[in-house]
Protein backbone atom coordinates (compact mmCIF):
# COMPACT_ATOMS: atom_id res chain seq x y z
CA UNK A 1 0.00 0.00 0.00
CA UNK A 2 1.69 3.19 1.22
CA UNK A 3 5.54 3.32 1.19
CA UNK A 4 7.66 3.26 4.36
CA UNK A 5 5.13 1.48 6.50
CA UNK A 6 5.83 -1.29 8.93
CA UNK A 7 3.26 -3.92 9.87
CA UNK A 8 3.00 -3.99 13.65
CA UNK A 9 0.00 -6.23 14.17
CA UNK A 10 -2.63 -8.25 12.40
CA UNK A 11 -5.71 -8.11 14.56
CA UNK A 12 -9.00 -9.87 14.00
CA UNK A 13 -9.96 -7.79 11.06
CA UNK A 14 -7.35 -5.27 10.25
CA UNK A 15 -3.68 -4.97 9.56
CA UNK A 16 -2.18 -2.25 11.68
CA UNK A 17 0.85 -0.42 10.27
CA UNK A 18 3.12 2.26 11.64
CA UNK A 19 4.10 4.86 9.04
CA UNK A 20 4.46 8.52 8.26
CA UNK A 21 1.50 10.84 7.94
CA UNK A 22 2.07 14.60 7.59
CA UNK A 23 5.52 14.55 9.17
CA UNK A 24 4.60 12.38 12.05
CA UNK A 25 4.40 8.71 12.92
CA UNK A 26 0.86 7.45 12.57
CA UNK A 27 -1.11 4.26 12.93
CA UNK A 28 -2.55 3.11 9.62
CA UNK A 29 -5.36 0.63 10.18
CA UNK A 30 -6.36 -1.18 7.04
CA UNK A 31 -9.37 -3.47 6.85
CA UNK A 32 -8.49 -5.81 4.03
CA UNK A 33 -10.91 -8.12 2.22
CA UNK A 34 -11.52 -11.37 4.06
CA UNK A 35 -11.35 -14.33 1.72
CA UNK A 36 -13.64 -16.44 3.91
CA UNK A 37 -16.54 -14.00 3.78
CA UNK A 38 -18.96 -13.72 0.90
CA UNK A 39 -17.85 -10.56 -0.99
CA UNK A 40 -21.20 -8.82 -0.49
CA UNK A 41 -21.18 -9.50 3.25
CA UNK A 42 -17.52 -8.55 3.47
CA UNK A 43 -18.05 -5.16 1.83
CA UNK A 44 -21.06 -4.42 4.00
CA UNK A 45 -19.26 -5.25 7.26
CA UNK A 46 -16.01 -3.54 6.31
CA UNK A 47 -17.50 -0.24 5.29
CA UNK A 48 -19.87 -0.25 8.27
CA UNK A 49 -16.98 -0.83 10.66
CA UNK A 50 -14.67 1.78 9.19
CA UNK A 51 -17.45 4.32 9.56
CA UNK A 52 -18.41 3.20 13.07
CA UNK A 53 -14.81 3.28 14.21
CA UNK A 54 -14.17 6.77 12.88
CA UNK A 55 -17.48 8.08 14.23
CA UNK A 56 -17.09 6.70 17.72
CA UNK A 57 -13.44 7.75 17.97
CA UNK A 58 -14.49 11.26 17.00
CA UNK A 59 -17.34 11.24 19.50
CA UNK A 60 -14.91 10.24 22.26
CA UNK A 61 -12.39 12.86 21.15
CA UNK A 62 -15.00 15.58 21.43
CA UNK A 63 -15.78 14.46 24.97
CA UNK A 64 -12.06 14.55 25.84
CA UNK A 65 -11.88 10.80 26.39
CA UNK A 66 -8.35 9.51 25.79
CA UNK A 67 -8.51 7.78 22.39
CA UNK A 68 -6.29 8.01 19.29
CA UNK A 69 -6.96 11.19 17.31
CA UNK A 70 -8.32 10.42 13.85
CA UNK A 71 -6.23 12.06 11.12
CA UNK A 72 -7.89 10.78 7.98
CA UNK A 73 -10.52 8.26 6.92
CA UNK A 74 -10.14 6.72 3.47
CA UNK A 75 -13.43 4.91 2.86
CA UNK A 76 -12.46 3.63 -0.60
CA UNK A 77 -9.42 1.85 0.75
CA UNK A 78 -11.02 1.08 4.14
CA UNK A 79 -8.11 2.74 5.93
CA UNK A 80 -8.06 4.96 9.01
CA UNK A 81 -5.00 7.07 9.81
CA UNK A 82 -4.79 7.84 13.49
CA UNK A 83 -2.51 8.93 16.29
CA UNK A 84 0.17 6.45 17.28
CA UNK A 85 0.09 5.70 21.01
CA UNK A 86 3.55 4.56 22.16
CA UNK A 87 3.13 2.05 24.96
CA UNK A 88 1.82 -1.46 25.58
CA UNK A 89 -1.60 -3.06 25.82
CA UNK A 90 -3.07 -3.87 29.22
CA UNK A 91 -2.96 -7.49 28.08
CA UNK A 92 0.81 -7.40 27.57
CA UNK A 93 1.19 -5.51 30.82
CA UNK A 94 -0.65 -8.23 32.74
CA UNK A 95 0.83 -11.18 30.84
CA UNK A 96 4.47 -10.20 30.58
CA UNK A 97 4.91 -8.35 33.83
CA UNK A 98 3.41 -10.68 36.39
CA UNK A 99 3.62 -9.95 40.05
CA UNK A 100 3.23 -6.21 39.75
CA UNK A 101 2.67 -4.31 42.90
CA UNK A 102 -0.93 -4.34 43.95
CA UNK A 103 -0.83 -0.58 44.03
CA UNK A 104 0.31 -0.27 40.40
CA UNK A 105 -2.44 -2.66 39.31
CA UNK A 106 -4.96 -0.71 41.29
CA UNK A 107 -3.97 2.50 39.50
CA UNK A 108 -4.46 0.80 36.13
CA UNK A 109 -7.82 -0.60 37.23
CA UNK A 110 -9.07 2.80 38.33
CA UNK A 111 -7.95 4.36 35.05
CA UNK A 112 -9.81 1.67 33.09
CA UNK A 113 -12.97 2.05 35.17
CA UNK A 114 -12.98 5.82 34.74
CA UNK A 115 -12.38 5.61 31.00
CA UNK A 116 -15.25 3.14 30.56
CA UNK A 117 -17.53 5.26 32.72
CA UNK A 118 -16.77 8.34 30.62
CA UNK A 119 -17.32 6.41 27.39
CA UNK A 120 -20.69 5.05 28.49
CA UNK A 121 -21.63 8.50 29.71
CA UNK A 122 -21.64 9.70 26.12
CA UNK A 123 -23.53 6.55 25.08
CA UNK A 124 -20.68 4.93 23.18
CA UNK A 125 -20.80 1.14 23.43
CA UNK A 126 -17.38 -0.26 22.59
CA UNK A 127 -18.52 -3.72 21.48
CA UNK A 128 -15.15 -5.44 21.79
CA UNK A 129 -13.72 -4.67 25.21
CA UNK A 130 -10.69 -6.84 25.89
CA UNK A 131 -7.35 -6.15 27.50
CA UNK A 132 -5.85 -6.07 23.97
CA UNK A 133 -7.98 -3.06 23.15
CA UNK A 134 -6.83 -0.99 26.13
CA UNK A 135 -3.43 0.65 25.69
CA UNK A 136 -1.25 2.29 28.32
CA UNK A 137 0.68 5.38 27.28
CA UNK A 138 4.39 4.89 27.73
CA UNK A 139 4.84 8.45 29.01
CA UNK A 140 2.02 8.88 31.50
CA UNK A 141 0.62 5.38 31.97
CA UNK A 142 -2.78 6.79 31.02
CA UNK A 143 -5.25 4.22 29.67
CA UNK A 144 -6.30 4.72 26.04
CA UNK A 145 -9.33 3.01 24.48
CA UNK A 146 -8.77 1.69 20.95
CA UNK A 147 -10.40 -0.52 18.31
CA UNK A 148 -13.92 0.87 17.87
CA UNK A 149 -14.82 -1.28 14.85
CA UNK A 150 -17.72 -2.96 16.67
CA UNK A 151 -18.83 0.12 18.53
CA UNK A 152 -22.12 1.96 18.28
CA UNK A 153 -24.14 4.60 20.03
CA UNK A 154 -26.85 3.48 22.43
CA UNK A 155 -28.44 4.75 25.61
CA UNK A 156 -29.67 1.33 26.67
CA UNK A 157 -28.55 0.13 30.08
CA UNK A 158 -28.62 -3.41 28.73
CA UNK A 159 -26.07 -2.57 26.01
CA UNK A 160 -23.72 -0.96 28.52
CA UNK A 161 -24.03 -3.89 30.90
CA UNK A 162 -23.26 -6.37 28.11
CA UNK A 163 -20.23 -4.23 27.19
CA UNK A 164 -18.92 -4.69 30.74
CA UNK A 165 -19.80 -8.38 30.68
CA UNK A 166 -17.73 -8.87 27.53
CA UNK A 167 -14.76 -7.26 29.28
CA UNK A 168 -15.28 -9.31 32.42
CA UNK A 169 -15.24 -12.54 30.44
CA UNK A 170 -12.12 -11.46 28.55
CA UNK A 171 -10.47 -10.66 31.87
CA UNK A 172 -11.38 -13.94 33.52
CA UNK A 173 -10.33 -16.08 30.55
CA UNK A 174 -7.14 -14.22 29.64
CA UNK A 175 -5.90 -13.36 33.09
CA UNK A 176 -6.75 -15.99 35.67
CA UNK A 177 -6.63 -14.68 39.25
CA UNK A 178 -7.38 -11.05 38.46
CA UNK A 179 -10.81 -10.95 40.14
CA UNK A 180 -9.60 -8.27 42.53
CA UNK A 181 -8.48 -6.05 39.69
CA UNK A 182 -11.76 -6.46 37.85
CA UNK A 183 -13.69 -5.57 41.00
CA UNK A 184 -11.58 -2.41 41.24
CA UNK A 185 -12.46 -1.54 37.65
CA UNK A 186 -16.16 -1.85 38.42
CA UNK A 187 -15.77 0.20 41.58
CA UNK A 188 -14.11 3.04 39.67
CA UNK A 189 -16.72 2.67 36.93
CA UNK A 190 -19.48 2.96 39.50
CA UNK A 191 -18.11 6.23 40.79
CA UNK A 192 -17.53 7.91 37.47
CA UNK A 193 -20.68 7.35 35.51
CA UNK A 194 -24.11 8.88 35.98
CA UNK A 195 -26.27 5.82 35.55
CA UNK A 196 -23.56 3.43 36.68
CA UNK A 197 -25.43 2.00 39.67
CA UNK A 198 -28.24 0.83 37.42
CA UNK A 199 -25.78 -0.53 34.85
CA UNK A 200 -23.91 -2.53 37.48
CA UNK A 201 -27.21 -3.92 38.71
CA UNK A 202 -28.05 -4.94 35.15
CA UNK A 203 -24.61 -6.55 34.85
CA UNK A 204 -25.67 -8.98 37.58
CA UNK A 205 -28.69 -10.00 35.48
CA UNK A 206 -26.55 -10.45 32.39
CA UNK A 207 -24.13 -12.66 34.34
CA UNK A 208 -26.96 -14.78 35.66
CA UNK A 209 -28.34 -15.23 32.17
CA UNK A 210 -24.90 -16.44 31.12
CA UNK A 211 -24.80 -19.04 33.85
CA UNK A 212 -28.34 -20.21 33.28
CA UNK A 213 -27.92 -20.74 29.55
CA UNK A 214 -28.75 -24.33 28.83
CA UNK A 215 -25.84 -26.29 27.48
CA UNK A 216 -27.09 -29.40 25.78
CA UNK A 217 -24.31 -31.47 24.26
Amino acid at each position, binding site marked *: MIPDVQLIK*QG*AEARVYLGPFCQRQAIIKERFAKA*YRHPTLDKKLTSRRVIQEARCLYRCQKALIDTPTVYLVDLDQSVIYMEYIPGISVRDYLVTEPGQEAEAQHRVAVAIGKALGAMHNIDVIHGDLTTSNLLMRETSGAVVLIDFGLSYVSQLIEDKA*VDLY*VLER*AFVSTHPNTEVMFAQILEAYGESSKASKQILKKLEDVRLRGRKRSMLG
Partner: protein
Amino acid sequence: MIALGLEGSANKLGIGLIRHDMSTTPPTVTILSNVRHTYHPPPGEGFLPKDTAQHHRAHILELIRNALDEAKITPKDISVICFTKGPGMGGPLTSVATVARTLALMWNKELVGVNHCVGHIEMGRQITGAQNPVVLYVSGGNTQVIAYAEKRYRIFGEALDIAVGNCLDRFARVLNLPNDPAPGYNIEQLAKKGTKLIDLPYTVKGMDVSFSGVLSYIEANAKAWLASGEYTAADMCFSLQETVFAMLVETTERAMAHIGSREVLIVGGVGCNMRLQEMMGQMAEQREGGMVYATDERFCIDNGIMIAQAGMLAYQTGYTTPLDKTWCTQRFRTDEVFAAWRE
Protein backbone atom coordinates in the same frame (compact mmCIF):
# COMPACT_ATOMS: atom_id res chain seq x y z
CA MET B 1 -4.77 -49.79 29.50
CA ILE B 2 -8.19 -49.87 27.87
CA ALA B 3 -11.05 -47.43 28.53
CA LEU B 4 -14.69 -47.95 27.69
CA GLY B 5 -16.52 -44.70 26.89
CA LEU B 6 -20.31 -44.26 27.01
CA GLU B 7 -21.91 -41.14 25.55
CA GLY B 8 -25.60 -40.24 25.31
CA SER B 9 -26.01 -36.59 26.29
CA ALA B 10 -28.17 -35.81 23.23
CA ASN B 11 -29.72 -37.90 20.44
CA LYS B 12 -26.52 -39.83 19.63
CA LEU B 13 -25.72 -42.93 21.62
CA GLY B 14 -22.04 -43.75 21.24
CA ILE B 15 -19.83 -46.50 22.64
CA GLY B 16 -16.05 -46.54 22.21
CA LEU B 17 -13.06 -48.56 23.31
CA ILE B 18 -9.60 -47.04 23.29
CA ARG B 19 -6.20 -48.46 24.23
CA HIS B 20 -3.31 -46.46 25.65
CA ASP B 21 -0.10 -48.46 25.45
CA MET B 22 1.88 -47.03 28.36
CA SER B 23 5.17 -48.73 27.39
CA THR B 24 5.95 -45.88 24.96
CA THR B 25 6.30 -42.15 25.65
CA PRO B 26 3.95 -40.62 24.85
CA PRO B 27 1.55 -43.56 25.14
CA THR B 28 0.52 -45.12 21.82
CA VAL B 29 -3.19 -44.60 21.38
CA THR B 30 -5.28 -47.10 19.40
CA ILE B 31 -8.98 -46.89 18.72
CA LEU B 32 -10.38 -50.39 19.13
CA SER B 33 -14.00 -49.62 18.29
CA ASN B 34 -16.30 -46.64 17.86
CA VAL B 35 -19.96 -47.47 17.34
CA ARG B 36 -22.98 -45.20 17.32
CA HIS B 37 -26.76 -45.32 17.07
CA THR B 38 -28.70 -42.12 16.43
CA TYR B 39 -32.27 -41.28 17.36
CA HIS B 40 -34.02 -39.50 14.46
CA PRO B 41 -37.37 -37.91 15.22
CA PRO B 42 -39.74 -37.44 12.24
CA PRO B 43 -39.08 -34.44 9.91
CA GLY B 44 -40.21 -31.13 11.38
CA GLU B 45 -39.71 -32.32 14.98
CA GLY B 46 -36.89 -31.99 17.46
CA PHE B 47 -35.80 -34.80 19.80
CA LEU B 48 -37.50 -34.83 23.17
CA PRO B 49 -35.65 -36.00 26.32
CA LYS B 50 -38.11 -38.79 27.12
CA ASP B 51 -38.05 -40.38 23.67
CA THR B 52 -34.28 -39.96 23.43
CA ALA B 53 -33.70 -41.65 26.80
CA GLN B 54 -35.98 -44.46 25.68
CA HIS B 55 -33.96 -44.85 22.49
CA HIS B 56 -30.70 -45.04 24.47
CA ARG B 57 -32.10 -47.62 26.90
CA ALA B 58 -33.34 -49.73 24.00
CA HIS B 59 -30.01 -49.85 22.18
CA ILE B 60 -27.20 -49.47 24.69
CA LEU B 61 -26.63 -53.13 25.64
CA GLU B 62 -26.54 -54.32 22.04
CA LEU B 63 -24.18 -51.45 21.17
CA ILE B 64 -21.78 -52.28 24.01
CA ARG B 65 -21.79 -55.91 22.87
CA ASN B 66 -20.94 -54.74 19.30
CA ALA B 67 -18.13 -52.52 20.56
CA LEU B 68 -16.58 -55.39 22.56
CA ASP B 69 -16.88 -57.78 19.60
CA GLU B 70 -15.38 -55.29 17.16
CA ALA B 71 -12.47 -54.63 19.53
CA LYS B 72 -12.06 -58.38 20.07
CA ILE B 73 -11.74 -57.96 23.84
CA THR B 74 -13.68 -59.14 26.87
CA PRO B 75 -14.78 -57.10 29.89
CA LYS B 76 -11.80 -58.25 31.91
CA ASP B 77 -9.46 -56.35 29.52
CA ILE B 78 -11.11 -53.03 30.44
CA SER B 79 -9.32 -50.83 32.98
CA VAL B 80 -11.86 -48.06 33.46
CA ILE B 81 -15.42 -47.13 32.47
CA CYS B 82 -15.94 -43.53 31.38
CA PHE B 83 -19.35 -41.90 30.97
CA THR B 84 -20.66 -38.41 30.19
CA LYS B 85 -21.49 -36.54 33.38
CA GLY B 86 -22.80 -33.48 31.49
CA PRO B 87 -23.69 -31.09 30.02
CA GLY B 88 -26.67 -32.44 28.15
CA MET B 89 -30.26 -33.56 28.54
CA GLY B 90 -31.04 -35.02 31.96
CA GLY B 91 -33.00 -38.10 30.91
CA PRO B 92 -30.62 -39.37 28.22
CA LEU B 93 -27.55 -38.64 30.39
CA THR B 94 -29.00 -40.57 33.32
CA SER B 95 -30.06 -43.53 31.22
CA VAL B 96 -26.46 -44.02 30.07
CA ALA B 97 -24.88 -43.30 33.48
CA THR B 98 -27.09 -45.99 35.01
CA VAL B 99 -25.62 -48.55 32.63
CA ALA B 100 -22.08 -47.30 33.35
CA ARG B 101 -22.64 -47.74 37.09
CA THR B 102 -24.16 -51.19 36.68
CA LEU B 103 -21.29 -52.41 34.50
CA ALA B 104 -18.73 -51.00 36.94
CA LEU B 105 -20.33 -52.94 39.79
CA MET B 106 -20.76 -56.13 37.77
CA TRP B 107 -17.25 -56.10 36.32
CA ASN B 108 -15.61 -54.48 39.32
CA LYS B 109 -14.17 -51.46 37.48
CA GLU B 110 -13.49 -47.84 38.40
CA LEU B 111 -15.65 -45.04 36.96
CA VAL B 112 -14.67 -41.66 35.52
CA GLY B 113 -17.32 -39.00 34.85
CA VAL B 114 -16.36 -36.86 31.86
CA ASN B 115 -17.31 -33.36 30.74
CA HIS B 116 -18.73 -33.73 27.25
CA CYS B 117 -17.05 -30.57 25.91
CA VAL B 118 -13.65 -31.58 27.24
CA GLY B 119 -14.24 -34.95 25.53
CA HIS B 120 -14.62 -33.18 22.18
CA ILE B 121 -11.46 -31.14 22.73
CA GLU B 122 -9.27 -34.06 23.82
CA MET B 123 -10.48 -36.23 20.94
CA GLY B 124 -9.75 -33.45 18.46
CA ARG B 125 -6.26 -32.94 19.89
CA GLN B 126 -5.56 -36.67 19.78
CA ILE B 127 -6.72 -37.18 16.19
CA THR B 128 -5.20 -34.05 14.65
CA GLY B 129 -2.07 -33.66 16.75
CA ALA B 130 -2.85 -29.98 17.35
CA GLN B 131 -0.74 -28.92 20.31
CA ASN B 132 -2.24 -25.82 21.85
CA PRO B 133 -4.93 -24.53 19.51
CA VAL B 134 -7.76 -22.09 19.91
CA VAL B 135 -10.75 -24.42 19.86
CA LEU B 136 -14.02 -23.64 18.14
CA TYR B 137 -16.57 -25.97 19.67
CA VAL B 138 -19.78 -25.93 17.66
CA SER B 139 -22.65 -28.35 18.12
CA GLY B 140 -26.38 -28.58 18.61
CA GLY B 141 -26.11 -27.35 22.18
CA ASN B 142 -22.81 -25.49 22.36
CA THR B 143 -20.97 -22.66 20.68
CA GLN B 144 -17.72 -21.78 22.39
CA VAL B 145 -14.34 -20.32 21.53
CA ILE B 146 -11.93 -21.94 23.95
CA ALA B 147 -8.23 -21.78 24.75
CA TYR B 148 -6.18 -23.60 27.34
CA ALA B 149 -4.34 -21.77 30.09
CA GLU B 150 -3.19 -22.81 33.54
CA LYS B 151 -4.89 -26.20 33.85
CA ARG B 152 -8.24 -25.17 32.46
CA TYR B 153 -9.99 -24.83 29.11
CA ARG B 154 -11.08 -21.23 29.30
CA ILE B 155 -14.05 -19.88 27.41
CA PHE B 156 -13.13 -16.73 25.50
CA GLY B 157 -16.29 -16.40 23.50
CA GLU B 158 -19.66 -18.10 23.28
CA ALA B 159 -23.15 -17.79 21.90
CA LEU B 160 -25.13 -15.39 24.06
CA ASP B 161 -28.44 -17.10 23.26
CA ILE B 162 -28.88 -20.26 21.18
CA ALA B 163 -26.17 -22.59 19.86
CA VAL B 164 -25.28 -22.49 16.18
CA GLY B 165 -26.32 -26.12 15.66
CA ASN B 166 -29.65 -25.40 17.29
CA CYS B 167 -30.11 -22.43 14.95
CA LEU B 168 -29.44 -24.62 11.89
CA ASP B 169 -31.61 -27.48 13.17
CA ARG B 170 -34.53 -25.20 13.89
CA PHE B 171 -34.33 -23.70 10.43
CA ALA B 172 -34.19 -27.18 8.91
CA ARG B 173 -37.49 -27.85 10.69
CA VAL B 174 -39.04 -24.74 9.14
CA LEU B 175 -38.12 -26.12 5.70
CA ASN B 176 -39.24 -29.59 6.79
CA LEU B 177 -35.87 -31.12 5.92
CA PRO B 178 -35.28 -34.69 7.15
CA ASN B 179 -33.50 -35.25 10.48
CA ASP B 180 -31.57 -38.11 8.92
CA PRO B 181 -28.55 -38.22 8.94
CA ALA B 182 -28.64 -34.77 10.57
CA PRO B 183 -30.64 -31.61 9.89
CA GLY B 184 -27.41 -29.59 9.60
CA TYR B 185 -26.06 -32.02 7.02
CA ASN B 186 -29.16 -31.56 4.88
CA ILE B 187 -28.85 -27.77 5.14
CA GLU B 188 -25.22 -28.07 4.00
CA GLN B 189 -26.21 -30.10 0.93
CA LEU B 190 -29.05 -27.74 -0.02
CA ALA B 191 -26.83 -24.68 0.51
CA LYS B 192 -24.54 -25.88 -2.29
CA LYS B 193 -27.34 -25.09 -4.74
CA GLY B 194 -27.97 -21.60 -3.35
CA THR B 195 -26.87 -18.60 -5.40
CA LYS B 196 -28.35 -15.44 -3.87
CA LEU B 197 -27.05 -14.00 -0.62
CA ILE B 198 -29.89 -12.65 1.53
CA ASP B 199 -29.03 -9.70 3.76
CA LEU B 200 -29.42 -11.25 7.24
CA PRO B 201 -28.75 -9.85 10.73
CA TYR B 202 -25.09 -10.31 11.71
CA THR B 203 -24.47 -10.11 15.46
CA VAL B 204 -21.01 -10.21 16.96
CA LYS B 205 -20.07 -8.75 20.35
CA GLY B 206 -16.32 -9.01 20.75
CA MET B 207 -15.66 -12.73 20.95
CA ASP B 208 -19.34 -13.54 21.57
CA VAL B 209 -22.03 -14.20 18.99
CA SER B 210 -25.80 -14.23 18.93
CA PHE B 211 -27.98 -16.30 16.60
CA SER B 212 -31.55 -15.68 17.73
CA GLY B 213 -31.85 -12.51 15.63
CA VAL B 214 -30.83 -14.15 12.38
CA LEU B 215 -32.98 -17.20 13.08
CA SER B 216 -36.17 -15.30 13.85
CA TYR B 217 -35.64 -13.03 10.83
CA ILE B 218 -35.22 -15.89 8.38
CA GLU B 219 -38.01 -17.92 10.03
CA ALA B 220 -40.41 -15.01 9.79
CA ASN B 221 -39.73 -14.42 6.09
CA ALA B 222 -39.19 -17.94 4.75
CA LYS B 223 -42.80 -18.65 3.77
CA ALA B 224 -43.21 -15.34 1.93
CA TRP B 225 -39.92 -15.70 0.07
CA LEU B 226 -40.82 -19.18 -1.07
CA ALA B 227 -44.30 -18.13 -2.14
CA SER B 228 -43.11 -15.12 -4.13
CA GLY B 229 -40.17 -17.02 -5.57
CA GLU B 230 -37.83 -14.24 -4.50
CA TYR B 231 -35.52 -16.72 -2.80
CA THR B 232 -35.40 -20.52 -2.93
CA ALA B 233 -34.94 -22.81 0.05
CA ALA B 234 -31.39 -23.35 -1.23
CA ASP B 235 -30.72 -19.58 -1.20
CA MET B 236 -31.89 -19.44 2.40
CA CYS B 237 -29.68 -22.33 3.49
CA PHE B 238 -26.75 -20.78 1.63
CA SER B 239 -27.30 -17.35 3.17
CA LEU B 240 -27.82 -18.71 6.66
CA GLN B 241 -24.58 -20.71 6.48
CA GLU B 242 -22.55 -17.87 4.96
CA THR B 243 -23.76 -15.50 7.67
CA VAL B 244 -23.51 -17.61 10.81
CA PHE B 245 -20.23 -19.25 9.80
CA ALA B 246 -18.69 -15.84 9.07
CA MET B 247 -19.65 -14.84 12.62
CA LEU B 248 -17.96 -17.95 14.00
CA VAL B 249 -14.78 -17.53 11.97
CA GLU B 250 -14.59 -13.86 12.90
CA THR B 251 -14.81 -14.48 16.65
CA THR B 252 -12.35 -17.36 16.41
CA GLU B 253 -9.90 -15.09 14.62
CA ARG B 254 -10.44 -12.40 17.23
CA ALA B 255 -9.53 -14.88 19.96
CA MET B 256 -6.42 -15.94 18.00
CA ALA B 257 -5.32 -12.32 17.62
CA HIS B 258 -6.00 -11.60 21.28
CA ILE B 259 -4.14 -14.65 22.60
CA GLY B 260 -1.44 -14.68 19.93
CA SER B 261 -2.20 -18.20 18.71
CA ARG B 262 -1.77 -19.60 15.19
CA GLU B 263 -3.65 -22.89 15.38
CA VAL B 264 -7.40 -23.51 15.32
CA LEU B 265 -9.10 -26.78 16.08
CA ILE B 266 -12.75 -27.22 15.12
CA VAL B 267 -14.74 -29.77 17.14
CA GLY B 268 -18.39 -30.67 17.66
CA GLY B 269 -21.04 -31.83 15.22
CA VAL B 270 -21.26 -28.59 13.21
CA GLY B 271 -17.47 -28.89 12.83
CA CYS B 272 -17.86 -31.54 10.14
CA ASN B 273 -19.53 -28.98 7.88
CA MET B 274 -17.11 -28.66 4.97
CA ARG B 275 -18.06 -25.07 4.24
CA LEU B 276 -17.20 -24.06 7.80
CA GLN B 277 -13.87 -25.90 7.55
CA GLU B 278 -13.16 -24.22 4.22
CA MET B 279 -13.92 -20.75 5.58
CA MET B 280 -11.74 -21.35 8.61
CA GLY B 281 -8.95 -22.45 6.26
CA GLN B 282 -9.29 -19.27 4.22
CA MET B 283 -9.06 -17.22 7.40
CA ALA B 284 -5.93 -19.07 8.52
CA GLU B 285 -4.31 -18.59 5.11
CA GLN B 286 -4.52 -14.84 5.59
CA ARG B 287 -2.69 -15.09 8.93
CA GLU B 288 1.02 -15.76 9.19
CA GLY B 289 1.61 -19.41 10.03
CA GLY B 290 -2.13 -20.03 10.39
CA MET B 291 -3.18 -23.67 10.63
CA VAL B 292 -6.61 -25.35 10.85
CA TYR B 293 -7.29 -28.76 12.31
CA ALA B 294 -10.59 -30.59 12.01
CA THR B 295 -11.84 -34.15 12.15
CA ASP B 296 -14.44 -36.03 10.18
CA GLU B 297 -17.89 -37.25 11.13
CA ARG B 298 -16.55 -40.24 13.16
CA PHE B 299 -14.95 -37.98 15.77
CA CYS B 300 -16.75 -34.65 15.31
CA ILE B 301 -20.24 -35.96 15.93
CA ASP B 302 -20.84 -37.10 19.51
CA ASN B 303 -19.21 -40.48 20.08
CA GLY B 304 -18.12 -42.82 22.83
CA ILE B 305 -14.43 -42.71 21.95
CA MET B 306 -14.04 -39.07 22.95
CA ILE B 307 -15.45 -39.87 26.40
CA ALA B 308 -13.06 -42.82 26.69
CA GLN B 309 -10.11 -40.64 25.61
CA ALA B 310 -10.78 -37.72 28.00
CA GLY B 311 -11.68 -40.15 30.82
CA MET B 312 -8.49 -42.12 30.25
CA LEU B 313 -6.33 -38.98 30.45
CA ALA B 314 -7.90 -38.08 33.78
CA TYR B 315 -7.67 -41.68 35.01
CA GLN B 316 -3.94 -41.75 34.27
CA THR B 317 -3.45 -38.83 36.67
CA GLY B 318 -5.15 -40.90 39.38
CA TYR B 319 -8.61 -39.41 38.99
CA THR B 320 -11.73 -41.54 39.51
CA THR B 321 -15.35 -40.69 40.26
CA PRO B 322 -16.60 -42.45 43.41
CA LEU B 323 -19.98 -44.17 43.00
CA ASP B 324 -21.88 -41.62 45.09
CA LYS B 325 -20.55 -38.82 42.84
CA THR B 326 -21.62 -40.39 39.57
CA TRP B 327 -24.74 -38.27 39.22
CA CYS B 328 -25.25 -36.30 36.01
CA THR B 329 -25.65 -32.57 35.53
CA GLN B 330 -27.37 -30.73 32.68
CA ARG B 331 -25.11 -27.70 33.16
CA PHE B 332 -21.41 -28.33 33.38
CA ARG B 333 -19.16 -25.58 32.06
CA THR B 334 -15.99 -26.45 30.17
CA ASP B 335 -13.89 -24.27 32.48
CA GLU B 336 -15.08 -26.10 35.61
CA VAL B 337 -12.84 -29.07 34.78
CA PHE B 338 -9.37 -29.14 36.29
CA ALA B 339 -7.25 -30.52 33.42
CA ALA B 340 -4.60 -32.22 35.55
CA TRP B 341 -3.24 -34.11 32.53
CA ARG B 342 -2.19 -30.96 30.68
CA GLU B 343 1.11 -29.12 31.00
